[in-house]
């Protein structure tokens, strides 16, 4: 055999090989790095993706009159695990779109914990596609402090894959300078004085949940007819010009500037806007409660993430977090803990809703959230 030929062949094959290899390689490089390797040992770093304004900070704690290190600082000191805290979840669908590529190829996304809301279809997608890893409950003895209402959610009946981060409520917010109190969806959709100054959410579970309650239908068990009734009611209010538009979190801006007189609104937002002219109430027919859940995506370190979850389920810690972040905790014994830290914060009914308010709360039907036909109809109402 001619040795020159061999070298030529080698070079040619090598070049072809490199070309073939480098295209997917380049594409993978564009998709961002992989996650930390799964193993049974606790890492010294925790990568955590969450929504903005969802954590106690030195400023929010000082405002609440609490002079302690933040819960993140306490965790780092106690365990020696450094937390990289990313506030990079801005909407459930957007975050999902960003990470589903690598997850669907069984790759990590460089995160140990991510947060997703239970009244959108995406939390269910992570779990049913096996993109979330099982929690290591042996490292989470504090799971015993999870409130009973959160122990058996339909998307994860035994809490094998997820734990609540925080909850909030769907209700109606209004501007007292522009309207009388708005306390029902009927009033929101039919009061002629509100025409063109009404906002609703662009997320199906939130908006249709409140409309179903107004219709006397059960948002936790949706049928084709109750779904169609709700859609028709929204469509009618949209066609008549009563509804100005469909909003994400930006409804809060429009409520502040006076473009909206009344709008469907999340409990925590109105509290955080801290504007005396803005009010919030649970509609007379009831509201929807939703919960953001922590999950461990593929590639994330289960022991490290579980260690953090256990820390946050310490009632004292969760109480400090609730006082600093102004959201509802799912940990028992938080209220007495918060009273010890700051009696005034414990009186905030948005952070600590009364038993009466909680009894008016309902949850979305996951079957509705995952129904692609329903999703299509919902987008069609929005002109999409």
């Amino acid at each position, binding site marked *: 055999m001619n040795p020159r030929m061999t070298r030529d062949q080698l070079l040619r094959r090598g070049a072809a090989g490199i070309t073939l290899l480098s295209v997917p390689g380049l594409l993978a490089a564009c998709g961002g790095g992989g996650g930390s390797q799964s193993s049974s040992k606790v890492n010294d770093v925790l990568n955590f993706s969450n929504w903005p304004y969802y954590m106690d900070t030195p400023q929010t704690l000082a405002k609440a009159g609490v002079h302690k290190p933040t819960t993140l600082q306490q965790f780092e000191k106690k365990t020696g695990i450094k937390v990289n805290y990313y506030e990079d979840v801005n909407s459930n669908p957007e975050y999902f779109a960003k990470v589903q590529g690598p997850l669907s190829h069984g790759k990590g996304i460089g995160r140990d914990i991510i947060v997703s809301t239970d009244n959108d279809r995406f939390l269910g997608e992570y779990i049913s596609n096996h993109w979330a890893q099982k929690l290591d409950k042996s490292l989470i003895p504090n799971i015993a402090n999870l409130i009973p209402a959160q122990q058996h959610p339909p998307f994860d009946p035994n809490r094998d894959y997820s734990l609540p981060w925080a909850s909030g409520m769907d209700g109606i917010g209004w501007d007292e300078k522009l309207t009388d109190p708005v306390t029902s969806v009927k009033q929101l959709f039919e009061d002629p004085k509100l025409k063109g100054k009404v906002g609703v959410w662009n997320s199906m579970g939130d908006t249709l949940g409140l409309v179903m309650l107004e219709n006397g239908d059960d948002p936790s068990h949706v049928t084709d007819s109750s779904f169609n009734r709700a859609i028709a009611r929204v469509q009618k209010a949209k066609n008549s010009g009563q509804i100005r538009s469909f909003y994400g979190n930006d409804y809060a*801006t429009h409520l502040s500037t*006076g473009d909206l007189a009344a709008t469907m609104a999340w409990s925590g937002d109105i509290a955080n806007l801290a504007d005396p002219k803005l009010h919030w109430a649970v509609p007379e027919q009831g509201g929807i409660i939703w919960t953001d859940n922590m999950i461990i995506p593929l590639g994330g370190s289960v022991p490290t993430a579980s260690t953090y979850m256990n820390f946050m389920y310490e009632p004292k810690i969760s109480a400090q977090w609730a006082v600093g972040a102004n959201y509802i905790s799912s940990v028992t014994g938080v209220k007495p803990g918060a009273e010890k830290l700051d009696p005034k914060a414990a009186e905030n009914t948005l952070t600590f809703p009364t038993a009466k308010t909680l009894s008016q709360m309902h949850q979305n039907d996951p079957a509705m959230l995952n129904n692609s036909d329903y999703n299509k109809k919902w987008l069609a109402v929005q002109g999409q």
Partner: protein
Amino acid sequence: MGGFFHRHRGVTPYLLLAPGILWLGIFFLVPMGFLGYQSLQSGIFPDFRFTWEFSNFSTALTDYHQQLIRSFVYAGIATVACLLLAYPLAYWIAFRAGPWRNLFLLFIVAPFFVTYLVRTLAWLNILADQGPVVRVLRDVHILAPDGRLLATTFAVISGITYNFFPFMALPVYVSLEQIDPRLLEAAKDLYASSFQAFLRVTLPLSAPGIVAGTLITFIPAAGDFINAALLGTPNQQMIGNVIQAKFLESLDYPGAASLSFILMGTILVMLLVYARIVGTEKLTG
């Protein structure tokens, strides 16, 4: 090396082209291939299968022809508005601004120092129902007492016009600026009035700028979704909003991919017709 290029002169252009072609290949052709492949898939997320599903295209057209037509109407109106606003301005800067030329050009480009999203968000405050603009317009009875500017067709088209204005103004300016003033003098020497000189000399010589400006305004404007999302309502949704919602909300990747191709195809056909009418030499300047 010099010897090599000398001996293989034919190769040099290809070598110079190579980086550009590589770039286009990796960042345009490969994604286009993926998109085309995806547009012919069927199934429900995440289990899409390639099945030559051409019905994706017909379904997309049936369901969303309204938004598609609306996109071209909005983009068309905005392009014409940009041209009507930009031409006199560019003319003035090119022929009358003298030493201040560069300053005025800077004014045109200045909004670009702020990101697209923030520029559009600013209009939310300027046009707010309780804001100064709406209040004045109500006081002088141009707007009804409960009238508004935000969340209207007017707001969306104005937003597009505002955001794409420099794309029109700069090419028109460049073509006007290159006109030799002696040609205009010659026209006047031959007894042309100012208007005739403009019509017979200035306008034809600035045509390449107009054509280029029209294209780079119209094409991205037709695919825009920010202005409709922020300044509009469901009644103003454009095809970009539908594609965005299909990719991010309903996870209908094949539907979104086929709509993207329909948008590209329609623009391409319009471009060919346009090129036929105005002549290709103007497209290339």
